[in-house]
């Protein structure tokens, strides 16, 4: 694992979160959510801090991080792209849209482009089934997306 140096202010912020949650191991998931907001992802170094802060083993933290798909150990791209693969979107052709993003960006689902600009992931139902298939880029939601629209969406973000 490549060593990374964490921003000292962020580390202090995370330690303060552990204090706020009373060093209670039962709050692990809340603390991991907070940590992911602070750092954008959960590298090993962050998990070690969380383990110490909550008096639980590092293995336990890692076991929890790898269980939940919301937690990630790799940094997301500058523009995280999520394609809804809920059933409603699936039957309306979401898979083709996902394939198109991966094709144009040269990624596999779950990966980030080498320049760190885009990451592609699939998610389960954002609950906008009326707009199926749905794609989100960052906070922005795109509805009724067809494979042919993908190029245009990427162009909005300078791809």
């Amino acid at each position, binding site marked *: *694992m490549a060593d990374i140096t964490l921003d000292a202010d962020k580390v202090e912020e995370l330690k303060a979160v552990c204090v706020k949650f009373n060093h209670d191991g039962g709050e692990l998931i809340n603390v991991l959510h907070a940590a992911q907001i602070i750092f954008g992802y959960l590298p090993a*170094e962050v998990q070690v801090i969380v*383990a110490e802060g909550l008096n639980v*083993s590092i*293995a336990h933290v*890692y076991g929890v991080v*790898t269980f939940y798909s919301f937690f990630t150990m790799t940094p997301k791209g500058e523009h995280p792209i999520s394609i809804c693969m809920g059933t409603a979107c699936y039957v309306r052709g979401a898979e083709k849209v996902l394939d198109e993003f991966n094709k144009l960006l040269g990624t596999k689902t779950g990966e980030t482009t080498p320049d760190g600009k885009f990451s592609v992931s699939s998610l389960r139902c954002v609950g906008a089934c009326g707009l199926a298939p749905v794609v989100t880029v960052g906070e922005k939601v795109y509805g009724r997306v067809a494979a042919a629209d993908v190029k245009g969406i990427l162009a909005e973000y300078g791809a």
Partner: protein
Amino acid sequence: METVQLTIDNKKVEVAKGTTILEAAKTIGVDIPTLCHMKLEDTNFENNPGGCRVCVVEVAGRRNLAPACKSECTPNMEVNTHSVRVVNARRTVMELILSDHPSDCLVCAKAGNCDLQDMAQTLGIRQIPFQGEKNEYKSDESPAIIREMEKCIMCRRCETACNKVQTVGVLSAINRGFESVVAPAFEMDLDHSNCTFCGQCVAVCPTGALTERDHSREVLDAIVDPTKTVIVNTAPAVRAALGEEFGMEAGTRVTGKMVSALRKIGFDYVFDTDFAADLTIMEEGTELLGRLSKHLAGDKDVKLPILTSCCPGWVNFFEYNFPDMLDVPSTAKSPQQMFGAIAKSYFAEKLGKKREDLVVVSVMPCLAKKYECSRDEFKTDGNPEVDLSISTRELAQMIKNYNINFNQLEDEDFDQPLGESTGASVIFGTTGGVIEAAVRTAYEVHTKKECPSVDFKELRGMEGIRSATIDFDGLPINIGIAHGLGNARKLLEDVRAGKSNFHAIEIMACPGGCIGGGGQPYHHGKVETLKARQKAIYSEDESKTLRKSHENPFVQKLYEEFLGEPCGHKSHELLHTHYYDKKNVDKK
């Protein structure tokens, strides 16, 4: 007692409320097959996730099949343990498990001792109809334990041993679904983790996923090397368990046969670690009395209780978890390392050989001993005091490789001078034994009187945490005993908090002490096996003429000729050690 009546396979059964179907079935001779379930009675090891689903049974009126290990008996329940539906389900589940398991049983370290293999035989699995992806993981070869996780069946026994029993917390289930497996954080190698190498994960693993690192080939290489003098020494717990590997009943003492086999294998000298155990008592006992008399004289800085330090798993544990208390344990080396130090100095001198020409091999019930050999402070100019440590299981394998009919061997005696031992050293092999041995000597040294009785039965037993007060002729000495690192942690936390009133505490990492070590023949969840070994240890003690360490004539001679006095200058150099703060070693 409230009871429940039910029928199992059309037989009426009455059991206490709260009894599981699995336990109830056992009372009428019905053995429902289980795989993940393991309970070591009278210890705190119980693994019961209800995950393998091999123990499913049919319960009348229930929609789906019930896991016998997790389902409590209810009044008038009708259980069928072998209906067509049950047998089909059980076999299908087993086929599924095997479909994600390598088929290299012929060359697996666990072959013949594997719960999974046994279950496949019991259920008569002859083919695996499901073909598909199998999980692959990188292998992990630490100095003591090998992990080949594609053989993991997610029974979670190791996780229970590591977390609940030992509170070491190195292992956890990771990932989700088909990819899930048990691993250290970030899937790092055990060597980089806080692993104590106690080997309890290996002791309970039902498959070949967790095994010891095999050093027997290197031992053979040394034996056939004409330039090397190869010395072997065997720990007390080995002789109480080795016979099991040759079909003998648990608790059969095989000391003489073991010595004979070791000679046949070709070791130049067959010595006894027990000799070093007697030496340990001389050093540790003296240290105890030293601290005690300072304490009695009003010295506030003296560290009490003193903690035993002969268990390397335990030493690792406190280095990781109690680095603020490194001055509390005794500084005495473990018997293995004392043996090596004496063999490569005193005995080498006697032989007129250089230490490099000697190869010291130890046979241990333990996997942490392998790691202990590799510690830098146990080397002189890069040459280790003990070159190789093999487990009881590895020794059994070597004996088999040499075509030795172990059961028919004549008893033989250890070589001298490092083969003589007292009963006190033998009981090192079980929980409570080290401290009893120390008491036998310390009592007589302190009171200058003979012990009223050699047997301090109040120190014996299987309870996880025990305590007793021994009357040192008017001076009450409070003794604490813990086996299993989780129990040790409790006592240690009391010491840290200043709440402990013990003068001395004995700690063994493994449940039962060394008899339950990670290198012993597999107990397969039978606590009776451990208890039988314990009994064998005490009976060997009773059979000895000399039962107090300070009475060992060769130990006495060693001090006269070489060491001077216990805890003296030379002893300190050779027989004592120091500990490291490992809390902040890089954990990634």
